[in-house]
């Protein structure tokens, strides 16, 4: 990545911070309109848009979902037959590589949000596309990994370990898939100009979700793969 791109991104980030200082771009609900407030835009009590607040709440709720799944895995991770446990199955270099791919997608997501804030539609779509592609690559890696495990005899119902492992990583994989659908849909809606309200914020919402899914993977990767049973 060239220096100019980095400095541009930093500049954008500063600009975003400025733009969002006291921003009130709530867009898809007019029900709470307060017309005595004539600063334009729509007033919200917290000054944070409804959509963004809702996304944060949803992600808060998701923490408990993954918390439950991770607890289940931690409880059962040693309950497997002798030759089909983490020690025999994990291919740390491979999973590290796919993890790196997923984390890189967070970077491209940031670039997409930054481009959207610059109203640079072309780059927004490119970066969204790259993010989706990296996400798909991660997913392909996961599918490959699952296939390898299955060939070695680890089915969903083989042991408590396998069930809880596939459930946890499967749930994460479904989240990544939904994220990819959101990214692709966002590209389509940006192209057809079907986004109602603030386009930059819509991209940012997908970004929040995407980063969350990445952070969850960091936790899963650490707890499931890196810490020895």
């Amino acid at each position, binding site marked *: 990545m060239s220096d100019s791109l980095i400095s541009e991104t930093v500049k954008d980030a500063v600009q975003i911070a400025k733009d969002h200082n006291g921003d009130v771009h709530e867009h898809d609900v007019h029900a709470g309109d307060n017309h005595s407030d004539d600063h334009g835009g729509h007033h919200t009590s*917290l000054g944070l848009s409804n959509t963004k607040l809702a996304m944060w709440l949803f992600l808060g709720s998701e923490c408990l979902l993954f918390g*439950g799944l991770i607890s289940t895995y931690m409880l059962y991770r040693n309950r497997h037959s002798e030759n089909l446990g983490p020690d025999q199955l994990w291919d740390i270099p491979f999973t590290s590589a796919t993890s790196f791919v997923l984390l890189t997608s967070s970077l491209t997501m940031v670039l997409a949000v930054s481009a959207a804030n610059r109203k640079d539609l072309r780059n927004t779509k490119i970066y969204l596309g790259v993010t989706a592609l990296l996400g798909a690559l991660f997913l392909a890696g996961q599918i490959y990994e699952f296939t390898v495990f299955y060939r070695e005899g680890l089915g969903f119902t083989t042991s408590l370990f396998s069930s809880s492992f596939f459930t946890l990583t499967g749930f994460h994989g479904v989240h990544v898939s939904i994220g990819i659908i959101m990214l692709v849909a966002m590209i389509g809606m940006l192209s057809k100009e079907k986004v109602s309200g603030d386009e930059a914020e819509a991209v940012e919402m997908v970004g929040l979700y995407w980063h969350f899914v990445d952070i969850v993977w960091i936790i899963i990767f650490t707890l499931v793969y890196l810490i020895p049973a």
Partner: protein
Amino acid sequence: MAIIERPAEAPATTNRGSAPTPKASTNYGYLRRPVETTGWRSWAFTVDHKKIGIMYGAVAMFFFILGGLEAALIRLQLAGPDGTILSADKYNQMFTMHATTMVFLFVMPMAAAFANYFIPLQIGARDVAFPRLNALSLWVFVFGGVFLNTSWFLGGGADGGWFMYAPNSSVPFSPTNGVDFWGLGLQITGIASLVGAINLIVTVLNMRAPGMSMMKMPIFTWMAFVVQMLLLFAIPVITVALFLLMFQRSFGAQFFSVEAGADPLLWQHLFWIFGHPEVYILVLPSFGIISEVLPVFSKKPLFGYPFVVFSGAAIGFVGWGVWAHHMFASGLGPVSVAVFSVATMAIAVPTGVKIINWTLTLWGGKLTFTTAMLFAVGLIVQFTIGGLSGVTHAVAPSDTQQTDTYYIVAHFHYVIFGGAVLGLFSGFYYWWPKVFGKLLSEPLGKWNFWLMIAGMNLTFGPMHIIGLQGQPRRMYRWTEFRAGEGFFNLGFWNLVATIGTFILGVGILLFLINVWITHRPNSKTPPAPADPWDARSLEWITSSPPKEYNFARTPQVSQLDEFFHRKYEDVGEGDKHEYVQKMTGEEVIQFEEDNADPNIHLPAPSYWPMVLAFALPVMAYGVIYNTLLIVAGGAIATMAMFGWALEPADAESSDFDPPVEGDETSKELANV
């Protein structure tokens, strides 16, 4: 997104009936917004929080009656020795479905009905933050509830008890599809609760009227807000548990099979981490309701409003640290038991704070015992009884004796019926004129109240005795041989409990009769006055029933109990307060309407929430019967989500009347 935009002078109700027929839109084809404002379509596709609230309430009331009938069958079975009305199997299904229906399909959605209807009104908003998501919550709940109950016709209901412990929930012990229906049904209604929680939290945080800080919010809104926070974090935990159960039953995993080396306590922990906050989810809305009702009928402000708020929030926090007191008998070990025992005693403190605040609100007040007030006072008394027996469970050695006996059944009915349900009934009588514009009959209401109080004490009171005598809570029959002698004879008290159930049933029937008498076609009940109770909070600063835009102008809030302070002026000196009336409620409302906002935007109705909600039970049937159905349901859901996202923000111009002259944006919905 506007369906009503009007110039300042023209009242929004003009032009009704004279509107020309709307022309079909061509621009978006099937992605038009529905515009009907009459007939069933105006309800099915509505995004109006008030209509959604009413529908929530009506459906919840239906499930209340259904759950009540299930309870009646249980009590009939136990009325005498060797009951023959139900088989052991049917009895198991009956108590499981009774509890599930009452908790998930009656109390939670009824509280959601109140929250939906009154939160926007109490904070001075025109609707919730996400009106279409609100409609989604409603329809997901309705379809989920119906799905859950179709199990009766498809091989029998769930039969593992409402907390569905392993191994009772596994296929060998429950081979019918009942548990599958139960798990998937709760999964679906859980989505409704989660979506509703996000929506209402955003509404409360972001859409308060100017001047309404958090500490000026009406107390019901505060308590409902705490409940939504609990739901937000509790629902995902039960979601995990239910997914694991589904994988176990439908896809061969062994999460809860001891024979495969699994830990059956996993389910218990996951369930109760959800389940104990759930208890507060059930009761806090009612605490909020009676905290509105008691001040109004005592003619005093709520005593210690900040204490009531913070004790509610404290219950919300501590409620997360007490779940294992449901598991004292499962062998957790002395340290865990001691910790959870102490935490459980601690949570009685904020609850006690509330009871003291309510009592001191009554103290020295000018009390008027309307039906709403009777139910509110009834709650204080009955809930306190339940709270005290609850503290006896907190003492772990005593709990070990009580676990799985009728004593537990007595306790949780005193807190859930005596707490949650009495509060909801208080809310019915208090807010009925607000919602429907008519007062329910007070004499009939008093009969309703006293029969319910007598009925509930006769039903649940004796359960303390039969529980301490050792009758297990889920035994489908008892025998004369082991019923005991004299005062402690199980037979006598079981019969009393059954008689009590029917008295309780008559009380609830009187409520339905009261509603019918008030609203039957040629009812003589006059419209209610705008401010029948001399109320205090913001929802009364508008007509009853409120217009679809709620407030003629967005209220400016300067005080807690805003409506009261607009009606009354403090003429006392120094620390003495003396309030004299300067305006009547009608005048306050009239003043607001005379100064109406020039433009009011309201969200347009939508087809998609219902379509999306419909996809969920299709997928759920697919899990049980045929994978193809999962695919079909998934396709419907995907289509609905894209329809949702691509739907135009507003109805078509051709769907409106021609613009009112002089104001380009002023449109009145056609077909009003």
